[in-house]
């Protein structure tokens, strides 16, 4: 069976993990925002900005990790803007989020044209290279799939684990979860809902930008205008799919990425000659919608998601 061969090949899973990495960063970023009660629709634009910022910094001479840091900071800056508008000012989170996406995307394209006025094709950078983790990379199937990735992929997994730990095991995480459940409970215990929510949006947005930067600095080595291509929206769905839990969200991202990788391979295989390739392109999306419908039934939405909180009012 052709399909079985694909599913059992290490290269297929290696590709899936690679495709999943930017999704993991951005999904976890969105998850942090939503756990605190803020829907961040700026995600798509922030990913674009992060992809560009990281890449252009490296092109300008910064080391790779320096580029990641720049992307993080740019993302946090957009997060700051989002959170000021959506938290203390309590503006509609839909409007603010879509606004941030439009702003971040257009600022990116503008900067691109300003920095690189003449070029017809974007310059390439020396991107992150796979790093084989000794011993582990020798495990059959799992080794090449999981332990021969770029450092940024490892960072994505570590970050997902760290987020889960902070959210469920530390006082800070408890405060974030409570802010998304019932902000009055947080205020009544003497904590600042505003600070917690703003902090979550800023950190979350930073991670989204790193997710974007993965595309230009690890998956590819250059920047193209439509390279984010709706991944941000996928991540919003993945948060729901993951029932607002980092572990499940991570699995969701891998699942989606696996469908994506499968789609490419099936297209190339013999089946691809019979069925129009657009069907395969659709597959990950259709399957994720299906999974979403099945999974999200039992999911617990943070009760105060999108509910603004103002001190001193009722």
């Amino acid at each position, binding site marked *: 069976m052709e399909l079985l061969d694909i599913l059992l090949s290490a290269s297929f899973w290696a590709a899936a993990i690679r495709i999943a990495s930017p999704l993991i960063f951005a999904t976890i970023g969105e998850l942090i925002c939503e756990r605190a009660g803020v829907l961040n629709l700026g995600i798509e634009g922030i990913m674009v900005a992060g992809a560009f910022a990281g890449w252009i910094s490296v092109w300008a001479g910064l080391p790779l990790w320096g580029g990641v840091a720049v992307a993080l900071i740019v993302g946090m800056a957009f997060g700051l803007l989002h959170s000021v508008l959506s938290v203390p000012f309590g503006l509609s989170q839909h409007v603010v989020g879509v606004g941030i996406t439009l702003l971040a995307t257009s600022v990116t394209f503008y900067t691109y044209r300003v920095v690189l006025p003449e070029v017809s094709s974007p310059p390439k950078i020396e991107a992150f290279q796979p790093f084989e983790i000794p011993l582990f990379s020798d495990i059959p199937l799992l080794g090449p799939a999981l332990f021969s990735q770029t450092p940024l992929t490892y960072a994505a997994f570590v970050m997902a684990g760290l987020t889960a730990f902070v959210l469920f095991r530390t*006082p800070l995480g408890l405060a974030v979860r409570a802010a998304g459940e019932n902000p009055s409970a947080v205020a009544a215990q*003497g904590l600042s809902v505003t600070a917690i929510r703003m902090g979550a949006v800023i950190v979350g947005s930073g991670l989204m930008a790193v997710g974007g930067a993965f595309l230009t600095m690890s998956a590819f080595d250059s920047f193209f205008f439509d390279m984010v291509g709706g991944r941000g929206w996928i991540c919003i769905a993945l948060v729901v799919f993951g029932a607002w839990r980092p572990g499940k969200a991570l699995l969701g991202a891998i699942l989606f990425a696996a469908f994506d990788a499968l789609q490419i391979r099936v297209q190339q295989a013999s089946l691809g000659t019979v069925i129009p390739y657009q069907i395969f392109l659709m597959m990950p999306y259709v399957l994720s919608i299906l999974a979403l419908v099945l999974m999200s039934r039992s999911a617990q939405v943070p009760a105060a998601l999108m509910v603004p909180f103002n001190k001193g009012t009722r």
Partner: protein
Amino acid sequence: MSALETGAERADPVLRMQGITKRFGSVTANEDISFSLHKGEVIALLGENGAGKTTLMNILFGQYSADKGVVEAFGTPLPAGAPRAALDAGVGMVHQHFTLADNLTVWENIALGTQELGAFSLRPARVKAKTRDLSARFHLTVDPDARVGALTVGERQRVEILKALYREAKVLILDEPTAVLTPQETDALFATLREAISMGLSIVFISHKLHEVMAIAHRVLVLRHGRLVAEREIGDTNAEELASIMVGGEVRAPEVPALPAGPALLTLTGATAGVLQDVDLTLNAGQITGIAGVSGNGQGALSDLISGVLTLQSGEMQIAGQTPTHWDARTAIAHGVGRIPEDRHKAGTIADFDLTENAILETYQTDFSRAGWMDWTKARRHTEHLIQTYDVRCPGPDTPIRLLSGGNMQKLILGRVLEENPQIIVANQPVRGLDIGAVNYVHSRLAAARESGSAILLISEDLDEIMKLSDKIHVISEGRLSPAFLRGALSVAEIGKWMAGQGFAHAS
């Protein structure tokens, strides 16, 4: 505690509020209020709905900042608008509307905000152990691992108190803690509070129930229209005096003599729906039918069934002798069923809608629209009429309803229902959280509706209320309904037996 000691402590109040003034737009919620609280003392705060009790306590706790005045705890001033400072100074507050995160466990709610945000661990074992310890010491039984969303109202309240005790609060502010409790739960709460007082805690207690105030308070403060109008030692006063100070005049409960039954307007025969099992009930015109029982025994299902929210699984329902082919909320309203819901926040109102929108929620299609367009002028006039007739204290018909005090919200709902001249009125805990004046007012309105021929179903946990108003009484227990007894036919003790489930022939 000896007289001498008391004298010494009197010199050093644990808490002092001085010259507190707070305005919301044109409403003066608090005006120049001063008082102090001493160690081991219980102060009761009394006042009509909207008198400013909650506002004053929110200022004390730092949730609101006062326009004028100072708050001092143990001799040091508290910064305005900072609950953190109040908590650190040992002030704990149980809010009128609970401040718990439903999706978190009990211990998580308790731990929230008590630890350094930079810490690497929540130390669940320690939090739970301390919680269990406090639970045992203060008779506040609750499972630390339970999800708060799954708890009963009484349990949630225990969690709220535990939250304060966990922080080693020395002052407890309790804003209408008993409004949502069953009489049994209230007794348990009082046992806890007495324990706390004996350990040297001081308490500010808000309630509309004067017998509770007389039972637990040492001193009473009465607010009226935002001003402190009286201060009494409990020994120097009585319930009647307090009531009349509160409303600024004599308080007279309406006399409601029992009346004979009119024609049956609604009959349930062998009705089973939700938790209800095999219920027989007749609502007669010109009568109040009382349902006594501890809440959570099927009262909600009963009122849902009659108002068309719940459908019948088996058995029969007749409206004025006829079996309706179809029964939902809209048909129920069309058949003249009016409903005063139990939880005015959940089912009765939409918080962000203004008074006008809330006033016409059930009738906007029939009475306030022409050819598909809303007639807002008419709706506003109607709302102004309701505000006037039912004495709803508010800035005007455009105020969002969430800004009203609980009692005033209830009056608006009452007006909304009664103005439709309903044939059948389902009143589920209609006076919960209302002040005495408002309670009497609601009762006299219900009595008037009865006189004009409506059939009224009165559901209440308050036996006094049931026995005073009802022409006939049923007791509900675990979804079963006792036969009807005429007013006075059953003693309190006998009703208690039915409530405990004794007397039901086919006990399951």
